[in-house]
């Protein structure tokens, strides 16, 4: 059985800018994979190659071993894109019905609208939907054809709490039904919550590929920072369980997976700390520890 999705040595250049630098991976049919990376990492470019919206400068993008630009291939996937629009002057149910007609074996119209929780809005014009409802409508259009593969580019951005809850439930149901799902996100928690496998992409390269647990263990989850009025003694920070440490002026920044242990040790050493702050690392910082640490 061929892989559901495959990138083989994919390179994408926009003029001089290399958005994707020789990326290869394969996704088996039936798996739920998250592509994780900061903004501008190359996630959307990867998705666009897989959907046939862009052509790779070098390498290949294959869907079930075929060209995504062919109609027969396109009938096998549905997509939710970040930068796209739909007719504003159609009603929700009309638009879902229209998109359903593009696919050979679509889900029933009412079922799709109910799945995404837009029953109350089925007679509403698309232009009158809120941002969160529009996002749910896009999700409905992606799933309405009951496709074998779902591509979801940053699906939860702009989703309201209810939308997100609905979304997570439907995604899990689809995955349980044997569908292949590839979603992009820049939240580690979201990837962790949903996916069986996480592809980490940064600056156009695939930098990690593993289970959410593996990725989490390699990424520094917390950031500790404080200012020190006095000059730190030599060795004050040595031997701490941190992945990176940085001292600039009097500001100390430590990245770690074990903030409690680091703080305990700092207090024990009686290090002078003011403006102490501990918070979850954002993805940029986490990636620095992932890429910089190697």
């Amino acid at each position, binding site marked *: 059985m061929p892989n559901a999705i495959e990138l083989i040595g994919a390179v994408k250049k926009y003029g001089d800018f290399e958005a994707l630098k020789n990326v290869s991976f394969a996704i088996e049919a039936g798996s739920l994979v998250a592509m994780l990376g900061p903004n501008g990492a190359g996630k959307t470019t990867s998705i666009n190659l897989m959907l046939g919206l862009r052509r790779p400068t070098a390498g290949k993008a294959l869907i079930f071993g075929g060209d995504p630009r062919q109609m027969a291939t*396109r009938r096998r996937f549905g997509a939710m894109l970040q930068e796209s629009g739909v007719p504003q002057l159609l009603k929700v149910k009309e638009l879902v019905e229209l998109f359903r007609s593009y696919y050979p074996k679509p889900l029933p119209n009412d079922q799709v609208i109910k799945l995404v929780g837009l029953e109350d809005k089925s007679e509403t014009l698309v232009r009158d939907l809120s941002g969160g409802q529009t996002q749910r409508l896009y999700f409905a259009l992606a799933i309405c054809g009951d496709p074998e593969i779902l591509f979801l580019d940053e699906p939860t951005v702009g989703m309201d709490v209810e939308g997100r809850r609905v979304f997570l439930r439907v995604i899990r149901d689809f995955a349980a039904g044997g569908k292949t799902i590839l979603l992009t996100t820049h939240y580690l928690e979201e990837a962790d919550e949903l996916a069986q496998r996480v592809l980490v992409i940064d600056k156009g390269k695939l930098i990690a590929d593993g289970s959410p647990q593996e990725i989490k263990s390699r990424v520094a989850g917390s950031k500790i920072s404080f200012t020190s009025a006095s000059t730190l003694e030599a060795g004050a920070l040595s031997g701490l369980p941190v992945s990176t440490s940085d001292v600039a002026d009097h500001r100390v920044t430590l990245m770690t997976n074990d903030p409690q242990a680091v703080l305990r040790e700092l207090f024990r050493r009686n290090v002078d700390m003011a403006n102490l702050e501990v918070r979850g690392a954002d993805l940029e910082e986490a990636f620095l520890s992932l890429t910089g640490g190697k």
Partner: protein
Amino acid sequence: MGRVFLMQTRAEMLKFVRVPAFGFFSLLLPLIIFVFFGLRQATVPLYPHSAITVGTYVMTSMAAYTVGNVMVFSFGMALAIERGQKQDVLLRASPLPPAIYLLAKIVNAAIFALVALVVLFVFAHFSAQVDLATGTWVTLAARLLLGSIPFIGLGLGFGYLASPNSAPALINIIYLPIAFASGIFIPVNQLPDFIRGLAPYLPLNPFVELGWNAIGIPTDRTVTTDVLYLVAYAVGFFALAVWAYSRDTASKFA
């Protein structure tokens, strides 16, 4: 495939009727212009001893203007808006065959052009006693619908070149003066000299001549010559559309 086409056409029609401006420009405006130009001398012979009235002549001219307008506007505006809202992106990732997308738009435009013609014909019949043989009504409508094919190409070209904000102004700035200079509102022999020389070569002139010829007005050129002109315009405008489409595609989907 048939069902996709029906659904796509239905969606196109729903979108079209929900834009009040489209209805105004394609249905109401021709009637208003007809009232201004055609009603006063509606039953007067067009020239001494002619069986054709001024009302019939003006109605025919307005019919050509209307059909051309529906084609240029419905394609130009709709495409510019769709591109502006990035509707083309999701469609391109969907399994909708581009040919069906285009065909649905053409059928929708043809239906609205026909509706606009019927509205104008009925209005002219009752307000200006315009009376034609059944066969003449049908010939007139058929010639104008078939002869409007070049304007679909022109509309597509506008749609892929113009931004949603500039499209209405751009189309009006180009289409309206061409309509004037082609003798649609004012007969060619009453136009200023420098335009008179140009008029026969403008796309709306052979088009409106097809209509005039259908109701029995002597025209400068034969129907065959007019058709050849329109074929040449169709080739030119569709080439423009293909070029504009490739340019748009190359920047977004390469």
